[in-house]
C-alpha cells in the first residue's frame, strides 16, 4: 500500500486513500471510542457484578456502618477514643496514626538519607565505605523482614517493665516502650509557646533583612547563629520571667505498667526505625547521584572564587543538586507513606489496621477498601502537589 505523501501514486491507491477507514484522524477517533466503550463497559460490568453478588449473598452494603459503635479498642490514639465510639472515630484515629508515622518518617529519613548520601562522597575512605555498606545492606532486605527484625529486637532484648532499664532519672526503657517525663501542664506554658512562635517569625524576618543587606552592602549576616539564639533563647527567657513553673510528670511503675509521663510504644518505634532506615538507603543514593550530577567545574569555579568547602556545598552544589533530587525524592516520600501500611504486621494501629478490623467485623470489604484507596490517593496526590510546587519554585528559571 502506498504511503501518503509518496510521489507517483497510482489512481487506485489514491481512491483507497480517500476511503474513510484509511483516514488517520477518523481511525484515531474510532479507536479512542472503542477504548472508552471497553473501559466504561468493563467498569460497569464489574460494578454490576459486585452489586448483584452482594445482594444474592445477602451481604450488607453502604457506608451506614460508619456511625455504628466500633466496639474494639485501639492502643495508640492521638485523640479521645474508646470502644463506645463509632467506626468513623476509629478511622480518624487510624488516619492520624498514619499521619504521625508518615510525617515523622519523612522528616527523619530525609535527614538520615542526606547525611548518608553526603558521607558516601566523603574523601574519608572508612566513612564512604561505611555509607556504602549501609546503603547496600538496608536497600536489599525486604522492608517487612526489617520491621519484624526491629520489633523482635525491641520486645525480646528489652527487659519487662519491672526490671526496666533506667538510663536517666525518669526515663525507662522496657519491652513496653520508652517512657520519659514530660512537663505537666501549667498556665504559664502558653506564654512559652507564644515566645517560640514569635521567635520563628522573627527569624524569618531577620533572614529576609539579612539577604537584603547582603545584596546591597555585600556583608553576610550570621543567620544560623541568630536563629538558634532566638528560637532557644526567647522561650527560655519567657520561662525564666514567668517564674520557672516546671512540674515534671514522671513515669511510675504502677501495677502492670508505667503510668504518667509520655511514651513511645515498641510498635511505633519499630515501624519508624524500619521505615526511616529503609527509605534513607534509597534517599542516600538519590542525594549522592544528585550531587555527582553537578559538574565538577562548578566546584572548581566556586573554589576559584575563594569559597570554602562548606560554603561550596551549601551555596553552589546543593542548590543545583536539589533540582535533580526533588522528583525522585518525592517518590520516596510517597513510598514511605504507602509502606507505612505494613504497620499491620507488627501491630501498630494505622488506617489500614482499622479498616481491616472494620471489614472483618462488618464484612463490608468493598467499602473498607475504598476508604483506604481514597485516603492514600488523597495523601499521595497532596504530597505530590506540594513537592511539585516546591520543585517549580526552585527550578532553573529562564530570564
Amino acid at each position, binding site marked *: 500500500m502506498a504511503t501518503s505523501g509518496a510521489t507517483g501514486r497510482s489512481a487506485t491507491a489514491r481512491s483507497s486513500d480517500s476511503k474513510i477507514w484509511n483516514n488517520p484522524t477518523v481511525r484515531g477517533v474510532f479507536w479512542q471510542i472503542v477504548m472508552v466503550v471497553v*473501559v466504561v463497559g468493563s467498569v460497569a460490568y464489574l460494578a454490576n457484578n459486585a452489586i448483584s453478588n452482594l445482594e*444474592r*449473598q445477602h451481604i450488607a452494603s453502604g457506608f451506614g456502618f460508619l456511625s455504628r459503635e466500633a466496639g474494639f479498642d485501639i492502643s495508640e490514639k492521638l485523640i479521645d477514643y474508646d470502644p*463506645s465510639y463509632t467506626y468513623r472515630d476509629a478511622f480518624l484515629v487510624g488516619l492520624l496514626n498514619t499521619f504521625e508515622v508518615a510525617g515523622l518518617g519523612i522528616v527523619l529519613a530525609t535527614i538520615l538519607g542526606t547525611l548518608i548520601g553526603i558521607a558516601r562522597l566523603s574523601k574519608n575512605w572508612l566513612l564512604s565505605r561505611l555509607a556504602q555498606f549501609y546503603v547496600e545492606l538496608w536497600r536489599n532486605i525486604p522492608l517487612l523482614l526489617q520491621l519484624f527484625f526491629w520489633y523482635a529486637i525491641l520486645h525480646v532484648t528489652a527487659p519487662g517493665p519491672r526490671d526496666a532499664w533506667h538510663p536517666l532519672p525518669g526515663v525507662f526503657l522496657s519491652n513496653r516502650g520508652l517512657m520519659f517525663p514530660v512537663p505537666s501542664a501549667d498556665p504559664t506554658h502558653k506564654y512559652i509557646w507564644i515566645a517560640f512562635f514569635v521567635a520563628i517569625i522573627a527569624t524569618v524576618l531577620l533572614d529576609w533583612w539579612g539577604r537584603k543587606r547582603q545584596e546591597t552592602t555585600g556583608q553576610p549576616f550570621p543567620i544560623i547563629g541568630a536563629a538558634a539564639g532566638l528560637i532557644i533563647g526567647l522561650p527560655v527567657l519567657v520561662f525564666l520571667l514567668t517564674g520557672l513553673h516546671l512540674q515534671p510528670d514522671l513515669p511510675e511503675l504502677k501495677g502492670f505498667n508505667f503510668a504518667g509521663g509520655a511514651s513511645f510504644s515498641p510498635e511505633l518505634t519499630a515501624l519508624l526505625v524500619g521505615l526511616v532506615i529503609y527509605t534513607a538507603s534509597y534517599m542516600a543514593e538519590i542525594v549522592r547521584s544528585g550531587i555527582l550530577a553537578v559538574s565538577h567545574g562548578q566546584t572548581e569555579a566556586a573554589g576559584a572564587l575563594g569559597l570554602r568547602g562548606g560554603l561550596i556545598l551549601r551555596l553552589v552544589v546543593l542548590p543545583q543538586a536539589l533540582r535533580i533530587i526533588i522528583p525522585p525524592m518525592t517518590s520516596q516520600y510517597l513510598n514511605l507513606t504507602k509502606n507505612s501500611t505494613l504497620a499491620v504486621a507488627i501491630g501498630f494501629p494505622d488506617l489500614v489496621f482499622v479498616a481491616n478490623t472494620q471489614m*472483618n467485623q*462488618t464484612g463490608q470489604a468493598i467499602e473498607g477498601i475504598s476508604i483506604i484507596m481514597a485516603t492514600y490517593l488523597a495523601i499521595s496526590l497532596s504530597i505530590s502537589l506540594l513537592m511539585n510546587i516546591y520543585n517549580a519554585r526552585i527550578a532553573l528559571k529562564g530570564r
Partner: protein
Amino acid sequence: MKRILASAVFTLALGVAASAEAGQTLDNIKSKGVLTCGVNEGTAGFGLADSTGKYTGLDIDVCKAVATAILGSPDKIKFVPLSAPQRFTALQSGEVDILSRNTTWTLTREADLGLLFGPVTFYDGQGFLVKKSLNVKSAKQLSGATVCVQPGTTTELNLADYFRANKMELKPVVIEKLDEVENAFFSGRCDAYTTDSSGLAGTRVTKAQKPDDYIILPELISKEPLAPAVRQGDDQFYDIMRWSVFALLQAEEKGITSQNVDQMLKSEDPDIKRFLGVTPGNGKALGLDEKWAYNIIKSVGNYGEIFDRNVGKNSPLKLERGLNDLWTTGGLMYAPPPR
C-alpha cells in the same frame, strides 16, 4: 494501547469467572475433584500443619468429613490457611468453599456477612493466659494490663466489652499473625494473652518453653460456639455440610466407629441401616452417594474419635469433653434424626 486492551479483557474475564463461581457449589467441587477448605494458620488441636505440610486438627477433620461425603475420599481437599481478618472475605469471594477455622457463630456474621453456620463443632469460651510469676489469680485483677489479641475476632470485641463492663483499663496489643501475637506474649510484650480457652490450651502446650510457667485464668468471659461456615445462597451445599457434621455425632451416639463400621453394615437396627446407606434414600436426598455416611465414619471416625485424637485424652491438649460431650452423657452435642 495493546497492553491496556489486554488488561481490560483480563479484568472482564475475571468478572465472568467470579460470577460463574456463584453457581452450584456442589457441581463445582465435583468437577474440580477437590474441596477447598479455609483453615487456621496454626492452632494446635484445631488446624495445624506439621513439618511435612500435613494438616491435622478438629477443624481439619470436619473438612475431611465434608470432602468424604461429596468426593468419597478425605484426601481430596485443598487447604487454604487464613488469618482471622482474611477468612470471611476468602469465603465470600469464593476462594474457599467452606470455612472450618475455629470461627465463632454470631448474629452479625450471618446477617451482615452473608454466611451460614453449620452445627457447632466445639463449644468454647474466651479466657486469659498469664505468666504465673505475675501472681494474678482472676481476670478481674487485669486492670491496666497489656493484653495481646488477634484483630478481627470476636475475642477482640469481647475483650473491649469485658474491660468496659468491669471499668478496667485496657492496653491492647493487636497483631494480625497468630505467630507474631504469640511471640509478643511469650517475650513479655503483653501481660496476658486472650483467645478461646481451647486455643489458649493449645498455645500453652505447643508454644511455651515451659508450659508450667503459665496459667489459664478461671474466668470464661464469653460464649464461643465454634462452627464451620459456608456462603449463603446454596442450600444444597449447606445441607451437605450440616449433615456431614451431624453424621459424626449420630455415629458416636449409635456407637459406630471407624473400627466397627464394617460390622455395623450387618446391623438389624433400621436406624443404622438407613444411616449407613444399607437402606437407600438419605444419599439421594442430599445429592450424594448412598454410602456418604459410611465413607465419613470409615475414613474420619465419629465425633468422639475426632475429639479424643485432636484435643482430648489422646492429644497433648488433654481437654475434658465437658459441654462437648453427647447429649446422652450430659453435653450439648445433639444431632437431629437422619431419616
